[in-house]
């Protein structure tokens, strides 16, 4: 499982400053898109390893392997769930459900909008953010074409709701998995702490987008019959290429979710459950295993490897612990102030750049802060803000990128930065307020479930 040990010795300020600059430079390259994020992260890792060994921050090369070994759990969860999700995607199970649920709206624009938001949260919570968004965004676009509706409200709504869906369970989002692993947050705790806020934040997004696009979501009663007939022409069974696989995929997904829920009681890691689910998916899919293996999210994995090595080296220099100390000082040891600072900073940073490096960098900082302050509010604050922060800008999260490129490619329409900031900015402000109220309330009444000791 992911864990960041506090180094017993700290290094001098020069190596810290140099390594910090390399990390910052890497993040600038990632945020500006000057280099592909995987290339930037791997380059950052190489430079940091060389500098770390030269400065004596890393005592030997074996420490690089030790950094990666700590993170093997997250990588296992990503590999296992990618395979499972690919097989489930090919079975037509989610496409079937998507059409079935969208038909409930009978072509009414406002009801369809609500159905798609609910669908997004549900699908992302099971499939993770990219595949979940892809399915719902595509359906939204096709339905909008059929019903001759403006696709913008639907796609913007899907992009925003997806970031809420990533909070529902431990395995719903990459950031959620990273922070959950680092903190050792049990799967079932997510249903208590983050699922309610996922629903509330999605509702906030639904309300803001619906209000902003009131005119586009207005329905004309005169054409209700026509619209209902147009939607009824979609047949969900046409999406199922293999009925046997359809049921096997459904069963495997349910078993994997149950496995996640009972992993702690079984004394196994979530990566074990995910890999078992992935292996069973390959075994029972009836497809070419090579096809399923190709669908593993290698971009994220290589990105992680680069980031973890780079951050691990910077952590060894003691720089991140100093940052944690500064944050603790700013909050004067007050957990309420610390939570507000952490949540606001994380949300803003995640809006500006990919939330994965933001979370990866903040994990060791929060880990250090947790030595002086209660850990649970900080960890949960990081989970919630890193995911929701993506709503700030049109490039803040993968769901925004997918939905907006679908809108442009398939619908020929664009949502500019100005339009997005008016909608997403307001959504994020509301969501951050909700998250802060939620976290401060739980802290005040001491409601957070105790975080158990991690498996080693």
């Amino acid at each position, binding site marked *: 499982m992911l864990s960041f040990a506090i180094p017993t010795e700290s290094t001098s300020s020069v190596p810290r400053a140099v390594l910090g600059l390399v990390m910052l430079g890497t993040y600038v390259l990632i945020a500006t898109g000057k280099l592909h994020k995987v290339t930037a992260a791997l380059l950052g890792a190489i430079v940091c390893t060389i500098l770390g060994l030269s400065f004596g921050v890393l005592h030997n090369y074996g420490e690089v392997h030790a950094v990666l070994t700590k993170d093997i759990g997250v990588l296992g969860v990503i590999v296992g769930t990618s395979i499972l999700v690919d097989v489930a995607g090919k079975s037509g199970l989610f*496409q079937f459900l998507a*059409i079935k649920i969208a038909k409930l709206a009978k072509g009414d624009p406002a009801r369809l909008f609500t159905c798609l938001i609910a669908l997004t949260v549900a699908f992302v919570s099971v499939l993770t953010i*990219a*595949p979940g968004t*892809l*399915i719902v*965004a*595509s*359906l939204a*676009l*096709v339905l909008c*074409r*059929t019903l001759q509706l403006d696709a913008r409200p639907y796609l913007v709504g899907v992009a925003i709701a997806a970031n809420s869906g990533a909070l529902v369970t431990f395995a719903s989002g990459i950031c959620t998995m990273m922070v959950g692993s680092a903190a050792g947050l049990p799967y079932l705790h997510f249903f208590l702490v983050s699922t309610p806020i996922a629903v509330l934040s999605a509702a906030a997004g639904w309300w803001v987008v619906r209000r902003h696009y009131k005119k586009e979501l207005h329905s004309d009663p005169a054409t209700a019959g026509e619209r209902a007939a147009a939607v009824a*022409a*979609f*047949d*969900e*069974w*046409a*999406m*199922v*290429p*293999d*009925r*046997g696989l359809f049921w096997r995929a459904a069963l495997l997904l349910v078993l994997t979710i149950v496995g996640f829920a009972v992993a702690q009681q079984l004394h196994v890691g979530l990566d074990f459950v995910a890999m078992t689910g992935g292996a069973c998916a390959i075994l029972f899919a009836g497809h070419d295993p090579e096809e399923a293996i190709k669908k593993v999210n290698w971009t994220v994995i290589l990105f992680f490897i680069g980031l973890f090595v780079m951050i691990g080296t910077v952590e060894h220099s003691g720089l991140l612990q100093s940052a944690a100390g500064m944050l603790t000082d700013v909050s004067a040891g007050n957990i309420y102030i610390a939570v507000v600072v952490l949540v606001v900073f994380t949300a803003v940073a995640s809006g500006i750049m990919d939330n994965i490096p933001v979370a990866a960098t903040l994990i060791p900082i929060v880990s250090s802060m947790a030595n002086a302050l209660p850990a649970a509010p900080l960890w949960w604050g990081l989970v919630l803000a890193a995911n929701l922060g993506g709503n700030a800008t049109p490039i803040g999260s*993968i769901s925004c990128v*997918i939905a907006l*490129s*679908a809108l442009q*490619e*398939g619908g020929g329409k664009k949502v500019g930065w100005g339009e997005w900031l008016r909608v997403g900015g307001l959504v994020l402000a509301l969501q951050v307020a909700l998250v802060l109220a939620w976290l401060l309330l739980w802290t005040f009444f001491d409601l957070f479930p105790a975080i158990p000791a991690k498996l080693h």
Partner: protein
Amino acid sequence: MTDSDLKNQLLQFEAARVGAPLALQPAKVTNVLAVRDGTDQDPTVLALAGAFALRSGAVVREFYSAAADPLDELLKVASDCQLLVVPSPFRRDYAAEGQQSLSTTVDLLLARCPAAICLARAPVEGAERCVTHPLVALQIERHRKVEATEVALTFAMGGGEIMLLSVVDPQRPVRSEEMVGRSLDPKDLSPDVLHGLATARAAALTAALQRHAGEWRIGVRVQFGLGDAVKLALEQNAKRGGLLVAGRNRDATTPGAQDARRLVLGSRWPVLLV
């Protein structure tokens, strides 16, 4: 996530717009005629006819004639039959000539007989398994794909599995009306779009079969491909070892009839032309 993933997903949902549901029903088969020719293909013909009858509850009748040209007699006997099982080549050695000729009798039968015709080829071990696992090549005489699927359904019902094979051949022109009718850009003939077209071509049948699969107790699999419909059907069925089912055009000069002919010549498994 690539642009191709997005395009594929969009095309899949577009394909699901099938309009009015297809009222697919198993075909009625009450009389099966097993046509013997006195060669070593007779046991295969009888085994297949028996398996068809068992699956459909039909009555099997045997036909054998020593006449030099048995066609007229055969057509007369076959007039009340819905299915004929005939060896191909007729009265010739399958091992020597099976890949070269269907035989004159079979050619004339295909042109004149209104019933479905199953052409027996190499010996089949486990005839019942073979007829309960049909592969329907939808693009071979595609105007008959519904009828072909209904006949395949008759024999697969009650524990079998149907595979629908829907393909688009990039070498053959695609009608722009077909593309426009399915919300596809006729100018975009990229593999993603052609794959989407293959999905759309099978969508109504897929939906009709999958919806009632539980009630009919059948497994349904749909396979899509780009390339020559005959070649892909033969390749897919070689892995599967089941009955090949395709539409039939009684006019031998049409491309559909020629494809069906190539399918039979290339197959070692029985081919049912509907």
